[in-house]
């Protein structure tokens, strides 16, 4: 089952914003202060560039999935090593999202909620979506993304008047070094285009519009910049103490209206985006497992993903434990390697292997399931 180009762009959009409104703004501030806004900008642009190249390579690869593609370029053993590294990356991303979600749900949204009540329905939902495949995840993402977008803008706009632009000045007073360090240390929160590698052979490039990808990338970047601007502008030097950007912003507003508290409900909408994102990374995790161990059916890898999501919540003191793992230099090296070096190798190897091959023209492509709604004559290009 394939997804169309627009759905891919929406998944990129959701992936770009997924981890950015949790603890990241406050964490970035500890290293690079209000200039963190530029760290986020630079790394998101980098992710956008990667998205372009990876999608281009996915288009060239045609019907090949990532494993077949890598095997044709680098051989079986190297391919499996690559996939194992990607598996680690997706596992880390899932842990990061799950940790943030649990922090928000269990500690912020409820006075007390057992981890059991939190994780069981979530694991079941993720399992269901993964089992149903990427088309299912993409369609859900397509519906929820606009609600999430409007919700985030609503929350942030309420505090916009309180943001003080002077707090950002002077720019780069300690030079670029803290920004580089910050980018390196918190790289796990970026790399939102890596999942595209697992969508090789699963995207319908018919009706592709490059402007669509640019639009969604721009939208994600502008949204994140807007939220960060308001967040740093409002909280300034107290930013490191505000661990959950969106909920803290929603509580801080000079507007005292009777609907103010309802912004909490809007924040809760963000849970939906996180669930979709978790399902997306879960899907990538499942696919990597299938390719590495040559598993044909969906059941066992899905169960493994569900078990992993479940375990994330069970193991020890999750919040502190995982935080330390994510901030360790070893994890930063692994994430930089998987997010930025692996895709380059894939792209370069692909360019060499398929150097004369151009993306197939629309008429040559196979009919695609997601556009099953199109009339048969349009599918066949007749």
């Amino acid at each position, binding site marked *: 089952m394939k997804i169309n180009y627009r*759905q891919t762009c929406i998944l990129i959009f959701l992936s770009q914003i997924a981890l950015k409104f949790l603890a990241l703004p406050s964490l970035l501030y500890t290293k690079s202060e209000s200039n963190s806004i530029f760290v986020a900008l630079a790394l998101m642009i980098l992710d956008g560039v990667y998205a372009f190249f990876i999608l281009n390579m996915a288009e060239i690869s045609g019907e090949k999935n990532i494993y077949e593609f890598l095997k044709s370029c680098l051989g079986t053993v190297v391919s499996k090593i690559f996939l194992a590294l990607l598996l680690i990356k997706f596992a880390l991303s899932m842990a990061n999202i799950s940790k943030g979600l649990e922090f928000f*749900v269990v500690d912020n949204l409820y006075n007390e*909620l057992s981890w059991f009540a939190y994780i069981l329905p979530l694991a079941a939902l993720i399992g269901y979506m993964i089992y149903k495949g990427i088309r299912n995840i993409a369609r859900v993402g397509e519906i929820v993304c606009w609600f999430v977008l409007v919700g985030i803008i609503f929350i942030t706009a309420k505090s916009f008047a309180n943001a003080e632009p002077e707090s950002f000045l002077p720019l780069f007073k300690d030079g670029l070094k803290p920004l580089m360090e910050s980018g390196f240390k918190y790289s796990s929160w970026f790399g939102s285009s890596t999942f595209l590698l697992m969508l090789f052979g699963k995207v319908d490039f018919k009706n592709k519009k490059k402007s669509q990808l640019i639009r969604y990338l721009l939208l994600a970047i502008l949204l994140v910049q807007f939220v960060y601007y308001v967040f740093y502008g409002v909280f300034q030097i107290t930013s490191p103490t505000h661990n959950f950007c969106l909920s803290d912003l929603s509580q801080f507003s000079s507007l005292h209206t009777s609907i103010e508290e309802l912004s*909490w409900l809007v924040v809760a909408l963000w*849970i*939906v985006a996180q669930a979709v994102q978790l399902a997306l990374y879960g899907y990538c995790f499942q696919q990597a497992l299938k390719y590495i161990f040559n598993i044909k059916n969906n059941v066992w890898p899905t169960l493994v993903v569900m078990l992993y999501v479940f375990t994330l919540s069970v193991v020890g003191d999750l919040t502190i434990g995982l935080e330390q793992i994510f901030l360790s230099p070893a994890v930063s090296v692994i994430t930089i390697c998987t997010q930025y070096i692996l895709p380059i190798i894939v792209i370069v190897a692909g360019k060499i292997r398929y150097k004369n091959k151009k993306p197939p023209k629309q008429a040559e492509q196979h009919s695609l399931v997601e556009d099953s709604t199109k009339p048969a004559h349009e599918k066949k290009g007749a």
Partner: protein
Amino acid sequence: MKIKAEKVEEQIKAKLHESSDIKSRAVKFFGCNVIIMYIADITDNKLLNDTVIYPITSYTRRVAGDKYAALRDKVLSSIELNELDIDGATDKLLHGHTLVIVDDAPKILTADMEKITVRAIAEPPNNLVIKGPREGFNESLKYNLALIRRRVKSDDLVIKNLELGKLTKTQISVLYFDSVADKKIVSEIVDKLNKIDIDGVVDSHYLISYLQKNPHSLFKQVGDTEKPDILLGKMLEGRIGILVDGTPIALTLPFIIIEDLQNSDDYYGQPIHVALVRILRLVGVVIAVLLPGIYIALEIYHYKIIPLSFLVTIMNTTQGIPFSPFVEVIFVILLFEILYEANLRMPQYLGIATSIVGALILGETAVNAGLVSPPTVMIVALSGITFYIIPSQAGQFSVLRALACLVGACLGIYGILLFCVYILAYLSSFDSYNSAYLAPTAPYIARDQKDFMMRATIDEMTNRPRSIANNRNNLRRRGK
């Protein structure tokens, strides 16, 4: 092989277990025995007398030679006749045909004399419109087909007749536009219908479980309508209609969820007003399904979210209520559902009394007795009323509302959000005959947004929707 009229009569009667309503009348036609057989209750007696019995008995011209040929070609030439063997003739007899059995004839003559007694064509109660056609289907397939034929003067309309039900032998018609409908889907539907092994088809809903892809799903997968203009509108978009004799409800396939948010009125009104109404319907659905669940969740887990003044009101009114919010809401929902069921099946004059007793006396008394709080009654009543914004989906909304209440009570807002995502994921996963169930939202189909929440003017909707798997002829009309 020549037949003997009396013998054939006996054979047919024996085949039909000597049923009392089978009548036969023997007449002589120039010395030849002729037996006329018919089923009294479904035969038009006047037509029978005028076109069969009277011409035979009063024929005065001399007939030499073959009497059977004379009857067929001269005496009964004014009516359409079939020549059949005993099995075929018996079958026709059951369909209201009259049999003319002539001694020493090679076949039996049959003529359609069916008397159709039907309800008058009236406006269906479920599809009321302010503007637009008010005709509705009735229980006669012939009449219903006539309502369609009257509107379509094109050779493009195809009507395929089938017979289903081993005992009822119900007539079924599959309708579509040859140049619009996807032929693969047509043959898939016809194949499915032909494979149905059932003793009787009492209503078109009997066919639904055979036609839908997920028979155990809560969600509706086959469209239905009681109005010819709606059926025609859907067929023009590429859908296939199914009419069943004995029921006014026509089925349509493929079905996508947005269909029930649309109403035939929408196409006869102003686009801006239509957009507003459609948004209201969508909001109504959300209120109907989620409001009681959200109320429970807020009261149990997230009372901090409720604005203070409203919270104080709620606390004042819920003080002393012996039940938890969940039990309280479920109690009121049950009360509401019982009243609804009772109201639906009672005679109309009693129904009004029940409404007054239910809504005013029971509700008021329950609140005064301290069993339920006023906000709960208000919330459930609001949810209950909004159900009927889309009456055809009320059943599934009711189940979803109960689930949302349960999830809200167990997991709060988090649970309700996950519940919504689960429903979306579930609905995203199935297609109805190559049409995505959530189209044109997921997948997003830009062209079809002209008839989604906002409706473009008729002249702007130049193409058939891509959400529906129609085959060819995509251009509907030229724009202005």
